[in-house]
């Protein structure tokens, strides 16, 4: 059963009955909010709705149901979407309204409606190539009606979403880009030598504009509010808000650069947010490398 909630003229959801109950319990939804059950014609207050509905039927023990967590947007967003199989194999499904277009990392499309038309754009030319991100971003347009696209990034890990409201600026580690709305500018211009030393790809992508932006990690993702100073290993940086000052430095002078194994860190200062990943690809590569079968030629 899918329930849409309306508060002050704005629709939220749809949610499952269990989600609505939880939202009522947590105060996120009010009993006075109006609810609409899919397939019904009338809107009724949630208080009435949750009383009249049958107790959540205990689901039969579906074997193999551990599909991970599903995230649907609760805050501001431009597209309807959900992220499934979080955090291990996060998978993004976006509904693209009729005749609109979504930008998606090349070769990440896993499923789509048949009226979705793909176009390849060489975004940013050479600098994009140097940015470590694949040379192309594909544009998927919903022709003649709304269409759905399922997006599977290459690395195992988590995914997050931010909604840019025009004034926002987000810096992304180049390999973290998944998808964005057409009003989001993804700029791969040279970020100076700070970017050069970040270890994981030469460039940071600067995302500005208006709309949805999705990015992914290798490993789990942690969102850290920064107020003051904060230090992150460069290869664990996924994204950060533009208001933060950052500098790349070795964690404890030259000696520890070579001896501590910590390499370079990114020091953030100011107020904002940093997203980090709990694993980093080079560590995985170094760990698997000795086990590669070697050819003799």
């Amino acid at each position, binding site marked *: 059963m899918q329930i849409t909630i309306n508060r002050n003229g704005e629709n939220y959801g749809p949610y499952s009955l269990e989600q609505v109950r939880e939202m009522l319990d947590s105060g996120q939804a009010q009993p006075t909010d109006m609810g609409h059950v899919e397939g019904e014609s009338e809107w009724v207050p949630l208080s009435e709705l949750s009383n009249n509905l049958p107790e959540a039927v205990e689901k039969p*023990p579906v*074997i*193999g*149901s*551990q*599909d*991970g967590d599903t995230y649907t947007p609760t805050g501001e967003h431009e597209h309807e979407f959900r992220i*499934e*199989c979080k955090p*291990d*194999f*996060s*998978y993004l499904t976006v509904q693209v309204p009729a005749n609109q277009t979504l930008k998606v990392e*090349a*070769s*990440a*499309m*896993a*499923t*789509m*409606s*048949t009226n*979705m*038309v*793909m*176009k*390849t754009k*060489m975004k940013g030319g050479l600098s994009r190539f140097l940015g*470590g991100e*694949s*040379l*192309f971003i*594909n544009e998927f347009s919903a022709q003649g009606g709304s269409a759905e696209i*399922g997006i*599977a*990034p*290459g*690395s*195992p890990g988590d995914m997050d979403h931010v909604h840019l409201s025009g004034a926002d600026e987000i810096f992304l580690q180049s*390999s973290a880009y998944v998808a964005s709305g057409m009003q989001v500018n993804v700029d791969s211009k040279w970020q100076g030598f700070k970017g050069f030393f970040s270890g994981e790809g030469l460039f940071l992508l600067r995302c500005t504009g208006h709309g949805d932006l999705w990015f992914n990690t*290798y490993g789990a993702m942690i969102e850290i509010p920064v107020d003051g100073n904060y230090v992150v290993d460069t290869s664990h940086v996924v994204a950060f808000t533009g208001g933060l000052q950052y500098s790349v430095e070795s964690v404890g002078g030259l000696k520890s650069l070579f001896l501590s194994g910590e390499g370079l860190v990114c020091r953030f200062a100011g107020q904002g947010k940093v997203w980090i990943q709990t694993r980093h*690809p*080079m560590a*995985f*590569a170094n760990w*698997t*490398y000795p086990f*590669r079968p070697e050819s003799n030629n």
Partner: protein
Amino acid sequence: MQSTIEGGPAFAYINIDLDPGETVIGESDAMSSMAADLDMEAKFNGGFFAGLAKAFLGGESLFVNHFTNNTSSTQRVTLVQGTPGNTRAVELNGQQLCLQPGAYIASTPGVQLGVRWAGFKSWFAREGLFKLTVTGTGTVWYGAYGGLLEKEVHGEYIVDTSHLVAYEPQMKLNIQLAGGLFSSLFGGEGFVTRVEGKGKIVVQTRSMSGLADWINPRLW
């Protein structure tokens, strides 16, 4: 027989509790642990030639293991797939299910495993000339790298060829380019499968080719 799948979606494993007299059949190498009193017997995967066909055409093992409980109490066997990812179970009641080669993990004795001609189009899309089918009555366990999501298809839907794990036999599969010629060659999508009909498909939320594309540039 009672069974549960735990550890998903990253490292799913199947616990099967066999009642006295019951048997479960697992892909060779699928057993990770079992009660010492269970009897295990390696057999050809449906006879010598049928086994060869499945091994070479369907990506499965030549031998399968039969785990039989000849004791008088319930005994547990734990079976796993080789790759990280999730496992699903499906109850067959005479119907058929088509599986991606290599996806099969285990089944109950009433289930027959077969290989079917998939066509040159399928081979062209690097999905193999043959597909694996399971049919009969009983439970089948299958798995793949990534999470597994079930989708109802009414009409047509497009799935990247490396993401399709299972589908109902009435679904028609057609291979096509992902976009125009330029986009398909340079956009990294290549070939996609156009699924037509009314029924269920199961897709995996990660692919081996995606993993390889992600890690290979870092291995030099």
